[in-house]
Every structure is written in structure tokens, then in C-alpha cells.
């Protein structure tokens, strides 16, 4: 369980997170959604300790996140970002097992774990010795996901993991990711600006606007019982975009979910 208690964060005078309190529940997928600049990526950076909060407390399974505890707590988290964040000087396998090697896993164990993850993410093992530049966008995100999962973390943080992919690959990977999340039973926090994606993945959706939570709940709640005029506007804009894209199937699926 991840808990934010009255957390604030500013960058250069502009408030990004504004006195925010939220609980992210264990072993389910929480989608953080909101327009750009709403603070959703910052929330992830706060969880993994890339940035300390200006005010308030962040608790990971009731343990406060401090600069001291961050190193240990990070090893229980996996982090995937939009462009994958793969190290260009390391090949796919080296990217994936870098941390396991540093914490002293023997070769055999690392190999077995990588094989396991290749099967899970349907990544061709023959491509493991390729460098990130030699991989396709979809493959890069699979490698990034494997790297995040390597040490079997309890918490998986994904910041627009599919944002850089073209629509075909994106749709394919969405389906796969969802089944991976379901099989793994991990606490997943996924940042997206796309309501369809949030609805597709999220057991719970948290809608952020200007550093505050404007509504949290399920997709249905947002659509049917918008708490503020902003929610209705946001939902309407996204749904009409989806409709315009003639992607009714996804909306219908989301409505059912």
C-alpha cells in the first residue's frame, strides 16, 4: 500500500502537487490520469524517491520514504518510463540484469530469471544481445518492463509506458500488459493521459488536475457521477475523441470493465 499524506511539491515557484492525500491499494492497478501538467508523473517520481516532497509524508507499506530509506525501498519497485529509459551502451540482457548482477545474483539465477521474463513478455531471447538502438519501439518497452520486473518487485510504476508506440503495437502491448498485471498480482501504478487506457487497465482511476485529486473511483463513476464540472469536461473531451477515432470497441470494453 502506498499512502500520500498532505504532500506538496513545487518546482521553481509553481505548485505541481498541492496538499495531496491519497491511498493506492495493494495488488491492484491504479491509473493516474489527468491533462499534462496535472502532476501525475511527479507523483510517480515522488513514490520512487527521485524527488523528495516539500511537505507531507509518503508511506510505502507504512514505512516512511526518506532519503535514507529510499535506496532500500526502491529495490522493491520497478519503474518503466515512456521511452523505456534503456541504457544505450548496454545490450538488452545487460540492461535487464544490471541490478541483479550488482546485488550479487549468480549467473545461473540471472539467466533463468531473464528466460522467465522473456516468456512472460513474449520477447525473443535471440534479441537479448541487441543494443537498444537495434530494437523496435515495442521491443524496447518489453525490455524496459523486464528490467523493472527483474528483482520481482512488489510495486510496478509505469509512466506512459505505451506513449511512444504506434497505435498497432500499442493495442497489442496493452492487451499483453493487462494479462501480465493480472498474473503477477502486484501493486501497479500507471500514469496515462488517455482515459481509454486508464479505463482499460485501472481497477481504480485517480483523476488529477493542477496537483489535486479531483475524483477517484472507477471509470463508471467518472462518467456517470462527475464530482466537478472539470471531470465532466475532461471525460467528454476524451470520449468524443475516442468516438471520433471510431474506437467504440475500446470504449464499450471499458464501460463493461
Amino acid at each position: 500500500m502506498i499512502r500520500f499524506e498532505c504532500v506538496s511539491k513545487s518546482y521553481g515557484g509553481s505548485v505541481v502537487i498541492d496538499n495531496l492525500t491519497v491511498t493506492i491499494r495493494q495488488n491492484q492497478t491504479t491509473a493516474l490520469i489527468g491533462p499534462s501538467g496535472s502532476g501525475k508523473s511527479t507523483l510517480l517520481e515522488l513514490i520512487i524517491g527521485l524527488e523528495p516532497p516539500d511537505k507531507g509524508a509518503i508511506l510505502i507499506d507504512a514505512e516512511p520514504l526518506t532519503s535514507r530509506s529510499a535506496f532500500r525501498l526502491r529495490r522493491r519497485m520497478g519503474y518503466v518510463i515512456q521511452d523505456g529509459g534503456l541504457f544505450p551502451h548496454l545490450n538488452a540482457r545487460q540492461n535487464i540484469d544490471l541490478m541483479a548482477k550488482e546485488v550479487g545474483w549468480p549467473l545461473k539465477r540471472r539467466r533463468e530469471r531473464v528466460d522467465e521474463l522473456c516468456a512472460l513478455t513474449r520477447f525473443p531471447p535471440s534479441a537479448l544481445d541487441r543494443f537498444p538502438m537495434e530494437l523496435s519501439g515495442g521491443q524496447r518497452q518489453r525490455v524496459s518492463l523486464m528490467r523493472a520486473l527483474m528483482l520481482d518487485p512488489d510495486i510496478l510504476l509505469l509512466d506512459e509506458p505505451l506513449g511512444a508506440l504506434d497505435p498497432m503495437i500499442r493495442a497489442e502491448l496493452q492487451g499483453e500488459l493487462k494479462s501480465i498485471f493480472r498474473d503477477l498480482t502486484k501493486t501497479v501504478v500507471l500514469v496515462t493521459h488517455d482515459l481509454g487506457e486508464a479505463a482499460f487497465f485501472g481497477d481504480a482511476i485517480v483523476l488529477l488536475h493542477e496537483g489535486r485529486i479531483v475524483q477517484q473511483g472507477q471509470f463508471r463513476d467518472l462518467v456517470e457521477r462527475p464530482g466537478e464540472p472539470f471531470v465532466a469536461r475532461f471525460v467528454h473531451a476524451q470520449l468524443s475523441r475516442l468516438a471520433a477515432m471510431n474506437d467504440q470497441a475500446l470504449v464499450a470494453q471499458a464501460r463493461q470493465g
Partner: protein
Amino acid sequence: MKHVRERLLLAAILAMIAASSLAEGAPEEVRIGSKKFTESVILADLAARLATSTGAVVVHRQELGGTRLLWDSLLANEIDIYPEYTGTLKQEILANEDIVDDASLHRALATRNLSMSRPLGFGDSYALGMMRQTAKRLGIENISDLARHPALRFGLSDEFLSRQDGWPAIRLAYGLNAVNPRGMDHDIAYKGLADGSIDVIDLYTTDPEVSYYGVETLADDRHQFADNQAVLIYRADLERRAPKALRAVLRLEGAIDDRSMIGMNNAAKIDRRPETQVAAAFLATSFGLANVERDEGLTSRLARRTMEHLRLTLLSLGAAIVVALPLGIIAGKRPTLGHAILAIASVLQTIPSLALLVFMIPIFGIGAAPAIAALFLYSLLPIIRNTASGFANIPPSLRNSAIALGLTPMQRLRLIELPLASPAILAGMKTAAVINVGTATLGALIGAGGYGQPIFAGVRLDNFNLILEGAVPAALLALVVQGLFELAERRLVPRGLRLKTNASI
């Protein structure tokens, strides 16, 4: 014939570096310096040969910059003897002390624990000269005639321009206020005079070029140029440390008349005979001194200079890498501190290389040490700047990914940041190394040897082959260094960073 002497030189250097404690019972040691003009080099070589004939270990440091450098080196006990002129001592070096005659000059030297030989037998005064036909055409015979021709272009040596008894005194005495002289190297001034790009130069009365080029020496009709007898000045303790060698060297007192000196200058500069041969020939005829030395062969000269040059470059570059890499990393990670570091390194870079070399002398003396120190300072900036930009250019997403993985700062540095910055760092080192190889040639001016020595001797003697003997290996070494760094880039820069194509799906 330089062979034995150069070997002794090497042995002496090695002995100083490795085992100064083993010097007990060693032969007498004498270190002789000379300025970077032919007459001075010949005189010093004469002294070196005479000292060597007594079995002393002799080091002759050639091509040391100007008067001030030699004087300071003598005071700092970096050299024991060098040829000087009484006028220079009275009017320039000791200008602030009221020296009226030779007796007061001896006293002034004695207070500094220095001694002066009796005159060697010839005078070498400053004079102003013009091409004979120009002087005739304009009707110029005396220096005072120059005032009537304000359009004449003056090319004067830097030392003459700055000496109190030089240009400032002449300008005042002859009312040459309208003249705006250009400062230039003395040897180049003769060429400028000959090809007509300048009209008036300063010269030494014993310069062989005077007769070679047909230069008219203008009469000093207001008697401004002082009598300038050649002497040897030496550290007084030499009488105790190396009595036999000193006695031999002082045989030069009164032994060289004007004609002999002009003849030797002529042989070296116009006939292009090596100074060592000229000096040996003079000693053979005047003193019947058998020439026991042989010429150092080209191969052995090149090998020695290569070792000297490599030593300068490798030590200074190695030290610069050790210091600049951490500074560059700090500068890349802390932009505010980085600005300060880069500003300091940039200021160092703007100091002219020769000036930087000379600044190092009070701290390190003359020889390889000050050159290495100066080259070290010069090599810092390219490495710091490239390392800093290599670190600053690491994408934030990769930084964050590395932190998020749970890597410690040291692990991030070793596994992520250094490999990612490695192309920039190596490029900086390559730049530093190539600049270093080139700049190291200037080290010859402060006694560090290397490829610069034949270059400066060649410029001085107008000997193109001699210039090539230094310039070609220096250029080749720069190419080799560049090639080595390119090889290192291939080996050290991770393959993943050299990929350019981005495969699409």
C-alpha cells in the same frame, strides 16, 4: 662528435633524477647555459668542450630564452656558467645599481655569489643597420640621419625594444619619436631587411649577416651604445666545486678577438656548419685541443629527442587526466561549481604558452619540470570541458532510470555515467594530447629538450633542414597520438553508443 657529450648529458640527467645520493666521488659537474642566438651557443660550446676535456660532466642547455631567463637560472643555481656581455650586465641586468666601472661590476656580482671572467677578447655592441643601397639612396650615414625619414619601417628585436640602453635610450637621444617599431625575432629581422619589408633593424656588430646581406652599420654619432665586452659569468662556488673545469674554461679569457668571433659566427650562420664543429675547430687551432667527440648520429638524436618529448607529453598529459577527470565530473554534475572550474581553466588557457612556460621557472627552475607543469595546465581545459559536457548531456530519463533501479551513486558513475560520457571524455583527451605534443616544442626554450630544440636552432641558423628535423617528427607524433586515441575510442566506447541507425518495427 656530440655523441659522447649527449650521452654524458643523459647520464647526468638520469643521475640527478634517480640517485643524487650516489654522487659521492663523482667527477666535477658543470652546467652551462646559452641564449638563443648563435654567438652565445658557440661561446657556451667552447666552454663546454674545455670543461669536458678535464673529465668533468658537462651539461649544455641551449636555446634558453633571453637574458633574464639565463640570469635568473644562474641566480637560482640551475646553471653554473653562461656567456654574457658587460654592457648587458651594466645597462640591463644591473641597471638599477649605479655601476660605473668594471670594479663596481665585480663587486655587484660578488654580492650575488657570482664571478665574472676577464673579457674574452671581442666586443659585441648593439647598432642600427640598413641595407647598403637604401642607406646610400637616402643619404643616411648616422643614426641621427634617421630622424629625417619618418616613413622608414623599423623591425627591432624584442630584447632591444625593452632594454633601457636599447630602443628607449636611442629614441630619446636621437629624437626618433615618430618611429613606430615592430618587435620581431632577430634572425627574422635580417630576412625582412633583405626582402625589403622593413628598412631598419638592430644588430650586433659581430653578426655575420652584416657582411653577408650587405648591411650598412649606421654610425652612433651621439655615442649611445655602450661598449659591450663578451665575458663569462659563473657561480663563485664553482672555484670550489669544479676548480679544474673552471680553470680550463677560463682559458677563453682574451683568446677570441673580433675577427675570430665574426669568423665563427659566419661559419655557423652563413656556411651552416654545426656550432659544435665550429667550436671544435677553433679549439683545435687555438689551443691544440684534440677533438675527442664524435657527432651524434641522426638516429640517436631523433631517439633522444623523442624520449625527451614523450616524457614531457606523457607525464603532463597523464597528470592532467588524473586531475581533470574528477574536476570535469564535478563540473558536469554541479553547474554552478562547474562554471567556476571552467572559468579558471579557461583563464589558464588564455595565457600565451611561452609566458606560461616562463612563469613556471621561479617555481620549478629550468628543464623538463617547468615544461611539464605548464603543459599540464594547458591540458586541463579540454579534458574538463569535454568531461563536463559529456556528463551534462546524459539524458535526464537515463539518470532517473539509473536512480530508480536502486544503483548507488558510485555504481551509477561506474556503470552508467562514465560509459555514456566516454566518447566526449576521450575526444577531450585527444584534443589535449594533440595540443600538448605541439606546445611541448616550446619547452626547448626553457631547457626541456624535445623536438623544439632543432626547430629553434633551425630558425636561428636559418637552416630549413634543421627545422624539419624537429617539425616532421613533432607532426608525426601528433598524428600517432591522434591515431592512438581513435583506436582507444573504438575499444573503450561501448558498441551500443556507436550505433547510429534506429531500427524501426
